[in-house]
Structures are given as structure tokens and as C-alpha cells.
């Protein structure tokens, strides 16, 4: 039988607490070690035990930006996985299930599938003495079906479990082999997909949250405060795990109000300071966000979105907070807001956001979402030599000594940025004041001063606007279709663009990475040059579309909007383009 090589999607489903996430990352990491690319996507409810959880890994030879709908191997640790996902399987796809499990029944299901009965619990109990390791058995069986060299998986297991001791590593390898060796030749022959080793590129498999954390570490974050909130929590745990290694203080505070105020306190003293949360926590941070603005304190806030309002869909994805981030906190002040669209951008833009925060002495909001935060992508290893650290205007003790009177909030600078002093420096005293204040920070309510200070802060914004990166069209020139989006939608769009080529349609995209300040002229000019413009957003209102219309007057009539907590499938975009 002719096999499809290096183009396969593997999915495992079961209850929370069964080790599905670890098994999933082992699957994709092993594939990437073999020189392939993987994109992983997880779905889970807000539960610790039980519920329905899935981990999907799509593997290929070329870059994969998003997963599509079809699945080739479905590992079902329970009946619910079969019921919910059997329809997703391609014809000829395999269902791996445990025939000893009385609650699982595959009779009467699709006839065009390969059924692989595997006594997972029995094998796991026999080898590891722990039936919970049945996912490892299933991992072995999956890789056997794909004729994937088991030694590669063994090396990954050594790296992943090495810190837990040799015994744990060996137990995992033995259990994996138990599943691998239980597959018959006939089963392999009947299955139509296989994975072949290619030249390894040393790629990394990484989530958006980890990319943000590493970007922050590379850029010199030294204080990180947070309160756990899905889907932002793994930024906290990642930085906490590496805190001592990089001289970072991580503070898990009592609430997000404390989080933002602590981050401001640290930022005020000259430490690169950051916090991350989701919508609910961000709501609590709003007043502090404004405090950072009026006291001109650098701090980076990462808002990892999930659908709201209130608790909403806590473990699902969405882009419903763009307009909220653009308008958070009372009063008028420059709001710096940016959003990466993939893991590499998450790494680079986090570092750049810390530069902007310090150069413009301002809070900066970086927007992400669950889809970017928790999905794994395969990319070239991050390189910190690409990261430049710019700390902005800081006054020296020597300069202070030579001054008659230091004015922390000097309104006379052209770019609105006045050099900072820090506690401990002689002759540099000032008040960081949440009240409107004069040039030294004393409370001052006069009309003249209020105008001067508003304008000072606004000049910072205008200065950045004149220097900020400008958006461009990416993809084919004079394309039939131009996609306009922001954030994680990028993955599905890029996959859709690949597929559109099969229909002889050319396409390109306009990704907005900086929402505030908004690159009005560039966007206006680009949009006018396009043949057919389609807006794609993971929200109901088309919030970026509204922003573009507000800023440029250009209304994008064609909109693909999705607001069910699920990310876009590339097929949905292709179907829309072909139908309309």
C-alpha cells in the first residue's frame, strides 16, 4: 500500500489528570527531533479531574502555522473521545482503544477506519505497575503504526524525565516499548500514513506563553508579579521555575491589584518589571494601569485573552478584549498596545515592548490569547543576539551633581520624555504622584500645568508613532484576496493561504501588530491598494475592523468572525473565500 509520508495529525482524548498533555508534547517533540515540524492544540475544560480533554499534534515537513480538521490517529482513553471525534478521522484513519475497558464500545462505527484494540491498562499495569501510564503505551502504539524509530522517542524521554531519575526514565521507555511492540505487521500495513526521519534543524517546540516568558527573560525582566489565571498562568510558572537562574524575583501576590501595584513599585525603582493575566485580572489592574501612566512608570502588562464576560469560557480562546485594552482605565493618556501573532513574534515583541516601556516611561499592554498562549509551534531556536536592550533616558549622579534643580517631569523636552532619577541618588528627589503634578511631582491643579502635563505625555505617544514599525502586505503581490487580522488568527490565515493556491487564488495579508498608536497612514494606503479585503477576527464585533474604520475611514465589509471559544480552522477561511 502506498503511504502518505510526513503529513499526519494525531489526537489523544481522555479525562483530565491522565497525563494527556505530557504525552502530547512527547509526541511532537519526538517528531521535531526527527527533523519534522509540529503544531499542537489542546482543548480542556476548567477542571482538575475528569471532563473531556484532547491534545492534537499535526506533523509535516513544512512549517505548520495552525491545525486543520482532519485526524489520522485517534487515541481514545474513553468512550467520549470516540463519540466526539470519530467523525474527524480521515478515511483509513486509526482508532486506538482499550478492548478491556467495558465502557468503550466501537461496534457499529464507521467501516472505513482501522480499529486498533490495545489493552493499554493491562500493559501499563504489567510493565509499570500503574494503569495511569496507558497513555505512554498508546504513544508507543501510535509511533509503531507510523513506523517511527523508537530510539528517537527514547532520547526525548531521557531529556524530559531525566530530572526525575533513571528509574522513571526506564519505566517510561519500557512502557512505551510495550505499546510499540504490541502492534502487528498487518495493522501497520493497513494504516496509510507514516513518518520518516529528515535532517534535524534543531528546532524548538514552544507555546506562546513560554515564548513571552523567554522574551522577557532575554530582555532583562527582573521583577515579575502575577496571580494565577488561565490562560496566562504558565508565564508565571515558567519564569518562577527559572527565577533564581536569571536573578528574577517572582511574586505571586494576593490579587491582581497588588500584582500591578508591585510591578509599578519595582518599575519605579528602575527594574524591568512585568505582569500577566487574563481579562478578569486585567479588570482589577485597570486603576494601576492608569497610575503607571500618570507617574510615567515603565511596566509591561500581558493580557492573555479568553472569552468573557466575567468567568466566561475560562479555558477557551478569543479576541474579545482588543477594544477593552485600547480603552482601559479612566482618563486620557497614551495607551501603548501591541499583539504578536505567533510564537517568534511573541518572543521578539515582548522584548521590544519592554524597550518601549522604558524608553517612553509608560505602561505597555501586550495582547495574546489562549490559542497562541497554549498551542505549541515548531520554530527555529530563539536567538537573544537579535534582541536589543534600550533603557531610555536615565540621569546620572554626575549630571545631578551639576544641576541646580532637577525636574523629573521636565515639560520642555521635544519627545515628552524626561530623564529618570532613582531613589538613592543625591539631588534627584521627586514625587511620583497619582495626582496631576508639576515638573517635580508636587500636586498641582492649575489649568496651565494640567495642559502642559497632558501635552508632555501625549508627545511621547506622537514621538513613538513617528518611529514605530509600519505594517506591510505579506504574501503574493496584487493578490486576489487580502486578509486583515491581528494576533493568533495569523496561524489559520497562513495555512488557508497555502490551501488557496490549490484553487489558483493568490492571497496576501495585512497583520496589525501595533494597535495603539495606530499606523493610520500605512494601513489606509495599503487597504486602498487591495482587490478584495477580508477581515478575520476571533470575536463577534470585528473589533479590529471597527478600529480600522475609526482610524482610516475604511470599512471592511467582508468579515469572518468566530466567537465560540474555538480557534479558526484554515478550512473555514478557504470555504468562505470559495463560497462568496
Amino acid at each position, binding site marked *: 500500500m502506498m503511504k502518505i509520508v510526513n503529513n499526519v495529525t494525531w489526537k489523544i482524548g481522555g479525562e483530565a489528570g491522565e497525563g494527556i498533555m505530557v504525552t502530547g508534547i512527547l509526541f511532537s517533540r519526538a517528531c521535531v527531533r526527527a527533523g519534522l515540524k509540529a503544531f499542537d492544540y489542546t482543548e480542556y475544560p476548567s477542571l482538575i479531574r475528569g471532563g473531556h480533554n484532547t491534545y492534537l499534534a499535526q506533523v509535516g515537513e513544512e512549517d505548520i502555522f495552525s491545525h486543520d480538521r482532519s485526524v489520522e490517529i485517534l487515541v481514545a482513553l474513553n468512550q467520549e473521545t470516540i463519540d466526539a471525534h470519530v467523525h474527524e478521522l480521515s478515511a483509513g484513519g486509526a482508532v486506538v482503544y482499550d478492548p478491556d475497558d467495558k465502557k468503550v464500545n466501537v461496534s457499529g462505527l464507521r467501516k472505513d477506519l482501522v480499529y486498533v484494540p490495545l489493552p493499554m491498562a493491562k500493559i501499563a499495569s504489567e510493565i509499570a505497575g500503574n494503569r495511569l501510564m496507558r497513555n505512554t503505551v498508546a504513544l508507543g502504539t501510535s509511533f509503531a503504526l507510523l513506523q517511527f524509530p523508537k530510539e528517537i522517542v527514547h532520547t526525548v524521554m531521557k531529556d524530559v524525565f531525566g530530572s526525575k531519575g533513571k528509574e522513571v526514565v526506564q519505566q517510561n521507555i519500557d512502557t512505551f516499548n510495550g505499546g510499540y511492540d504490541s502492534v502487528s505487521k498487518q495493522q501497520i500495513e493497513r494504516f496509510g500514513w507514516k513518518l520518516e526521519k529528515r535532517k534535524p534543524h534543531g528546532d524548538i517546540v514552544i507555546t506562546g506563553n513560554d515564548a513571552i516568558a523567554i522574551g522577557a527573560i532575554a530582555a532583562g525582566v527582573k521583577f515579575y508579579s502575577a496571580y494565577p489565571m488561565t490562560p496566562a498562568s504558565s508565564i508565571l510558572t515558567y519564569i518562577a521555575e527559572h527565577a533564581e537562574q536569571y536573578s528574577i*524575583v517572582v511574586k505571586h501576590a494576593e490579587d491582581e491589584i497588588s500584582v500591578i501595584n*508591585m510591578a509599578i513599585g519595582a518599575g*519605579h525603582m528602575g527594574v524591568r518589571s512585568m505582569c500577566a493575566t487574563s481579562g478578569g485580572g486585567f479588570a482589577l489592574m485597570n486603576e494601576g494601569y492608569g497610575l503607571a501612566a500618570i507617574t510615567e512608570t515603565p511596566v509591561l502588562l500581558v493580557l492573555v485573552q479568553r472569552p468573557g464576560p466575567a468567568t466566561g469560557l475560562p479555558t477557551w480562546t478569543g479576541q474579545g478584549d482588543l477594544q477593552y485594552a485600547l480603552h482601559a482605565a479612566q482618563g486620557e493618556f497614551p495607551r501603548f498596545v501591541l499583539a504578536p501573532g505567533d510564537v517568534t513574534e511573541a518572543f521578539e515583541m515582548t522584548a521590544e515592548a519592554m524597550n518601549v516601556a522604558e524608553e517612553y516611561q509608560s505602561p505597555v499592554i501586550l495582547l495574546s490569547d489562549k490559542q497562541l498562549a497554549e498551542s505549541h509551534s515548531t520554530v527555529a531556536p530563539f536567538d537573544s543576539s537579535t534582541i536589543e536592550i534600550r533603557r531610555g533616558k536615565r540621569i546620572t549622579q554626575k549630571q545631578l551633581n551639576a544641576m541646580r534643580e532637577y525636574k523629573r517631569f521636565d515639560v520642555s523636552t521635544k519627545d515628552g520624555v524626561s530623564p529618570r532619577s532613582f531613589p538613592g541618588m*543625591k539631588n534627584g528627589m521627586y514625587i511620583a504622584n497619582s495626582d496631576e503634578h508639576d515638573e517635580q511631582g508636587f500636586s498641582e491643579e492649575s489649568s496651565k500645568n494640567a495642559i502642559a502635563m497632558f501635552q508632555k505625555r501625549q508627545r511621547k505617544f506622537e514621538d513613538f508613532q513617528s518611529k514605530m514599525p509600519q505594517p506591510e502586505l505579506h504574501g503574493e503581490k496584487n493578490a486576489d484576496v487580502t486578509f486583515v487580522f491581528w494576533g493568533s488568527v495569523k496561524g489559520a490565515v497562513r495555512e488557508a493561504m497555502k490551501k488557496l493556491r490549490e484553487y489558483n487564488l493568490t492571497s496576501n495579508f495585512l497583520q496589525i501588530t501595533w494597535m495603539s498608536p495606530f499606523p493610520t497612514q500605512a494601513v489606509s494606503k495599503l487597504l486602498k491598494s487591495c482587490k478584495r479585503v477580508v477581515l478575520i477576527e476571533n470575536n463577534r464585533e470585528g473589533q479590529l475592523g471597527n478600529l480600522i474604520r475609526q482610524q482610516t475611514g475604511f470599512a471592511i465589509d467582508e468579515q469572518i468572525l468566530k466567537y465560540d471559544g474555538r480557534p479558526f480552522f484554515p478550512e473555514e477561511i478557504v470555504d468562505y473565500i470559495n463560497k462568496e
Partner: protein
Amino acid sequence: MAIVKDFETKRFPTWCPGCGNFGIWTTLKQALVKAGFEPHQVLIVFGVGCSGNETNLIHGYGFHGLHGRALPVAHGAKIARRNTKVIVVGGDGDGYGEGLAHFIHTIRGNPELTYIVHDNQVYGLTKGQTSPTSEKGYKSSSTPSGVIEKPINPLSLALAAEATFVAQGFSGNAAHLTDLIVKALEHPGFSLVNVLQPCVTFNHHNTFQWFYRRVYDLAKEGYVPNDRMKAIERAREWGDKIPLGVLFEEVRDTYEEDLPQLVKMPLADEPLDDIDISPLVKELQ
């Protein structure tokens, strides 16, 4: 060495004549001098309220934060530069109402902060509403029929949260209060100085005379502040007798001492060039 004048600014207080804030303001400046600080070595973080307006009246590094949120700003600042003396000044509404969670949680960590609370049992800046420390039955513009709740007892709360330095002063006894603040500034850990003060404009119950007749000096009674349970007993005294002085003191590791990241140098002085992320990248390959 600095003198009191060094801690003064060109601004004049906007408080009502006779306000207890004058006494606290004066003693804080004196205590800073006595404890040997120069203005540039000190960061004072203020809450919002009549006490917060003191921001403009003390020469030093100041931070006028949000209502109720001074403690977390100070905690973050202290972690960033542990060599800076960080003091927090707020009021009863600010610290025991809006910011109560921060009060308890900051105490748990024992960062080296001195927290001076202007406790006048009323909201002054918003013109006379009830405060978390108002007595039950206290009539105010927001509780015309009298407060239903019992008041917060900040001293007992602090003691229950394992505070390492708990003291109470009175704005009408400047010499005593100065000594208390000096002791607090010298304490290696979190120090609370709750300062009873009259609000001459809005609180006609807890007046200067009212306090004056009730307060007594713990030290003069031979009280030794080394027993937390005895301190809680004293902290609960309110009515005929109100204790002044140090109720409890012990030495325990500070938050900063428990962070190995802060041993080598202040966090703010950590160099940012040559940060090597390759070990992190390797973990992901």
C-alpha cells in the same frame, strides 16, 4: 547628618488647624533625622486621603499611589532596591478599608517596611463618612443611624497575621511618637505604627480630649513586648484605657533576606547585557 529642615519642602499643609496630621508629620521628620537618614536615601509611599497629602510636605523620594494600594507599591520598590529605606504612610480608610487585603498579606512576608497609619476613625478628605475603625453606633453622613459593624482592630489583625513589630502612638504625644517611629525604622522587618489622632472637623466623638483621657504608656507599666498573646490582649483594649507604645516585637527573616536573588546586589543594579537564554532554548529542542 541631616536636620529636620532638610526634610521640608516649600509647600504648606492644607490640613485643618488642629488636625492630628501636623503632629505625625512633624514626628516623622524628626524620627528620620534621629534614625540618621538623608532625604535621598528614603522612599515614602503614600496612600490617598488627608494623610496622603503629606506627599507634598516631605522632602525625599515620594510616591503618591492609589487609595488603599500604597503597600504593594512599597513592597515592589523594596524588592527592587533593598538598600533604600521604604516607608509607607496612609490612613485608616485607605489601609484598613480599601487596602485591607494588602495589609494582611504584606505582613505575612515581613518585608522591611515601616507602615505609619493615621487612624482618626473617620473619612476626612471625603467629608466625614464612617471609617473601618469607627466605633459601632458612630453616626456619620454615610451612617446617619449609626454604624452597624464593629470596628477593625488593626493591632490585633497585625498580631494575628504574625507581624514582627506592632506599635501604637498618639499624635498628641510627639516625643513618644518620635521614639516609636525611630524604633520602627530600626526594626529589621515589617513595622506597624498605628497612630491615633483626632479629626477636628468631622469626628466629634474621638476628640483630642477623648484620647488624652484614655491613653497610657505601656512601657511605664513595665510591659515587655515579647509575648504575642499578651500583646493581643493589650491590643483589644479600647474604651477606658488605650495602650500606647510597642505591643510586640520579634526578629524573623525579612522577605528580602529570603530571596537569594538579592544577595549579590540590588535587583535594580543587575546588568542586562549578555543574558544567555541558550539553556532555556535547549530545554525546548
